[in-house]
């Protein structure tokens, strides 16, 4: 077979069988453990949290308290502040230093069911310069800790990036996911 035809066939074969493979990470709102999106289902509805040693700024703590309280009031989760971080604390809050990333979520430990037992959440004071965006990002990262993924179109806090109004709560779609854990 002519080389160019071989290449064309190879491209077609590879394209035909491979497009489906990387599609999984784009599927938002899948649940069941740490799936191919960004969040991880936590082990239960009790979301304990604490301040890590770097999380000292009062405006960041206020945003985190807002986000935890919002989770408590909007969903079946309940938040419990723990004065001293330990191995069984669900969320450990820290400050991040970055010129480009507003905040992040990292599952630190998974259990045998592929659920997240403990996670770190960070907020970046350099980029989160007002209360609205601090609270929005706190809500956003807590959403990941409930298993939510990013949303391209949502009107709630799971949308990526800075906002100028609203976006400090979960919409009904995301509340249903959080409450159903599925």
């Amino acid at each position, binding site marked *: 077979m002519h080389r160019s035809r071989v290449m064309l066939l190879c491209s077609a074969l590879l394209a035909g069988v491979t497009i489906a493979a990387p599609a999984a990470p784009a599927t938002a709102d899948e649940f069941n453990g740490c799936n191919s999106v960004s969040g991880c289902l936590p082990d239960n509805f009790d979301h304990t949290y604490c301040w890590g040693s770097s999380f000292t700024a009062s405006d960041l703590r206020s945003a985190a308290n807002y986000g935890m309280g919002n989770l408590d009031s909007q969903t079946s989760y309940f938040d419990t502040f723990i004065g001293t971080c330990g191995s069984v604390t669900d969320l450990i809050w820290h400050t991040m230093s970055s010129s480009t990333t507003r*905040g992040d979520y990292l599952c630190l430990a998974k259990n045998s069911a592929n659920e997240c037992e403990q996670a770190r959440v960070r907020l970046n004071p350099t980029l989160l310069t007002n209360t609205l965006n601090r609270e929005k990002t706190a809500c956003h990262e807590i959403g990941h800790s409930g298993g939510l993924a990013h949303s391209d179109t949502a009107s709630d806090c799971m949308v990526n990036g800075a906002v100028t109004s609203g976006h400090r709560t979960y919409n009904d779609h995301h509340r249903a996911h959080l409450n159903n854990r599925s």
Partner: protein
Amino acid sequence: MLASAPGCTRGADAGDVAAFVRLFDGYSAEYDNVDEPIRLARMSAVVVRGSIDAVRPGPVYPQFPGDPQGARSVVLAVRVRAVLHGTLPDPGHRSVYVQLPAPGGTAAEVFDRHAPKEATVVLYLVPSREGGALVTNPDAGRPAGQRLVEPTTPQGFVVEAPGGVVEPTGHRTFPAAAIDAFVPSAAVFPSPAPAEHHP
């Protein structure tokens, strides 16, 4: 698992890329997406095209005093094929050492096993700012004297995959896109596959 086409060659093994991407489940960053590669390049110290040589254990960051596990990281040793923008951390050294989170404390050996080492990667990089007051092994993951870097945002780490390009820590895919569409000289970044929302 993807089938191989007999007689075909390709730059990335599909299974490896998919498995590698899944290892970053459990990590998410929030950032302001940029459309133009040159904008991301201007936010970065260096932009390179290369390939992953190895993945090694990186520094561990205890989250509280006495934390037995900490936040583990891995370090990708990336062989630089071309510098597309900026200056390498060590201009005389043709590798960069890219620190990434290891969700769930997954061992570096697992990342190394699944790393798509034949795939081309494009990296927009800044000096690593991971850290805090506590770190147990700050020099891990690279030769003595070499500095750690990290992707500028999740947009700054893309990997060639069969049928497109993937953004491992951004959890996005770009079907049918070519890796060269992600270099700083490209006009705009390709559009990712839309997220699938069910009712």
